[in-house]
């Protein structure tokens, strides 16, 4: 017998139990989620015009997850690589990957489990469907964190992101801010010592053990002795004057490494190459907006050029950092490709998307360059522009109306 048919029969058999008047009526969202996850549902729209397309919310979100996976694996490999390098162990591909996954998988599982719990709770209470958008949020959020993050902070952060970043506004599609970035911002301000600074980016051996048995062991020194893993951005920010590229070189960072992603940093952000693969998938499938990505990059390059231009011999090293470095370092590419393009929180008009992207890129580099408190500015730039997105759209539309009115007046229609 056809296995799909068997599955269909099983689901049909269980349906009355969950529908109105059924015994498990309250759990209908769970049933619905399972049905639509496994099968293409038979429900059709009623009345009015509608678009027939195989691409529904679930396929769309799965596409985003597929685009994120390269950064996940590249990031996991790098986490392993950094940990083994710090301990002076051999760094063959298998042990890097294995060590890395031992760190990253528990973080991702925590994020999915806790975030999923809130998602399902709200779906049941508010009687809406469980949305696949969470598969994206639950994966994006852990990738923005340093590998040494304690798991309970992941749980608190993702709870904040899902409940206060999304559900209070009415669930998927209603949120003002990107939920994954909201979660990260919460952790960033609530537990600054665990998410920034120069000792959080490399997971040591003891730390990996701590993660697996958090209540049985406690090691005060989670890092190998004498190791300090400043990120390249921190190096450039603390470089007082002179040649910043040389300073980065002295610290052992090259542009090629930054592109491939073998530098310390948050799990998903280090490999620019993996982000570009993700960008390719998003653009080819039409899921992510190329306008936003391209204009983000343009905005960053323009602002970096401006900063380089105004930087004097006394200004901080980061002011001298060439635009190409800005694109490769920190969370710039990751944020541009996966966070800024979030269709819910980004601008929606085509012209608005370009303004939105340019401002994100420019603001990110501006925060990096002139704010001594934050070596990284991408998160704050995107969150800020999320808030401005409706205003940008409004302005674009008003401009459009005005031009149309003028055109009608001129033609005397």
């Amino acid at each position, binding site marked *: 017998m056809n296995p799909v048919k068997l599955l269909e029969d099983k689901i049909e058999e269980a349906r009355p139990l969950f529908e109105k008047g059924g015994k498990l009526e309250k759990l209908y969202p769970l049933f619905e989620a399972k049905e639509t996850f496994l099968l293409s549902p038979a429900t059709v729209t009623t009345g009015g015009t509608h678009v027939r397309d195989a691409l529904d919310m679930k396929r769309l979100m799965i596409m985003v997850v597929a685009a994120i996976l390269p950064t996940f694996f590249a990031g996991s490999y790098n986490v392993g690589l950094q940990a083994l390098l710090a301990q002076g162990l051999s760094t063959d591909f298998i042990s890097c990957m294995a060590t890395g996954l031992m760190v990253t998988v528990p973080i991702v599982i925590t994020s999915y489990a806790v975030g999923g719990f809130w998602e399902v709770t709200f779906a049941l209470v508010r009687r809406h469907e469980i949305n696949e958008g969470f598969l994206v949020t639950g994966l994006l959020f852990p990738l923005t964190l340093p590998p040494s993050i304690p798991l309970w902070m992941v749980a608190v952060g993702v709870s904040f992101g899902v409940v206060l970043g999304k559900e209070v506004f009415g669930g998927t599609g209603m949120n003002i801010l990107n939920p994954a970035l909201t979660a990260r911002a*919460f952790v960033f301000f609530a*537990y600054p010592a665990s998410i920034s600074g120069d000792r959080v980016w490399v997971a040591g051996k003891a730390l990996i053990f701590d993660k697996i048995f958090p209540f049985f062991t406690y090691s005060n020194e989670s890092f190998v002795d004498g190791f300090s893993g400043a990120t390249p951005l921190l190096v450039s920010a603390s470089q007082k004057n002179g040649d910043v590229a040389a300073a980065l070189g002295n610290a052992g960072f090259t542009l090629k490494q930054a592109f491939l992603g073998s530098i310390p940093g948050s799990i998903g952000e280090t490999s620019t190459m993996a982000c570009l693969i993700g960008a390719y998938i998003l653009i080819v499938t039409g899921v992510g907006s190329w306008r936003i990505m391209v204009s983000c990059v343009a905005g960053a390059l323009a602002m970096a050029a401006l900063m380089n231009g105004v930087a004097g011999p006394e200004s901080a090293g980061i002011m001298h950092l060439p635009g190409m470095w800005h694109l490769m370092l920190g969370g710039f590419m990751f944020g541009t490709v996966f966070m800024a393009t979030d269709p819910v929180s980004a601008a929606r008009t085509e012209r608005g998307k370009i303004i939105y992207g340019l401002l994100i890129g420019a603001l990110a580099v501006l925060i990096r360059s002139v704010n001594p408190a934050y070596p990284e500015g991408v998160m704050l730039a995107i969150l800020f522009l999320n808030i401005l997105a409706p205003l940008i759209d409004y302005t674009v539309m008003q401009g459009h109306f005005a031009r149309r009115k003028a055109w009608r007046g001129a033609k005397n229609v």
Partner: protein
Amino acid sequence: MATETAVPASGGGIGLTTREKKILKDPLWDNNPITFQILGVCSALAVTVQMQTAVVMSMALTTVVAGSGLIISSLREYIPSKIRIIVQLTVIASLVIVVDQVLKAYLFNISKQLSVFVGLIITNCIVMGRAEGFAMSNPPREAFLDGLANGVGYSLILLAVATVREILGNGSWFGIRIVPEFLYAHGYVNNGLMVLAPGAFIIVGLLIWAQRTIMGVEKHD
């Protein structure tokens, strides 16, 4: 316009009329100045990092809003409506100065921590709101009770916010350690966001959410 009294004042006994009970009860929950009217939020953010300052601020504001209600209501027949705001402000400002001086005399350290926020009670929307909206058109006894109840309603929210902020942000309550040491030894860290003003915003927001969920949205609109 200021002389209208819909219901005769009660006979001065200790017992409360139904109307007075309602005046006392409403601001505590149904018509809470912070979570329902969204007034006085500025000070609710500023002084709720610790319980101690929140308690003192609550008492200060309750004194001022009850006292100003009583005085302004007693004067209401004689206040020309064109300059009523100035008169109200004079009364409120005098009370605030008295409270401020008392705090400086007896609770100097807390007074220093509260800094300008005691002085800023003058501009607190709750005080002005009750003076203009209630005391100007109701008898002194009711205006006093109304001020008292609004002060207590404000205090309840302040204390709730301060409790959450001090426990999560500092691990203590009234300065006494609440979060046990072994949690810190196992990697627990105080939540730094709770010490910042946005933390208070989030807590107030959650309280408003909880209140609207319990009361039902319809009652609000």
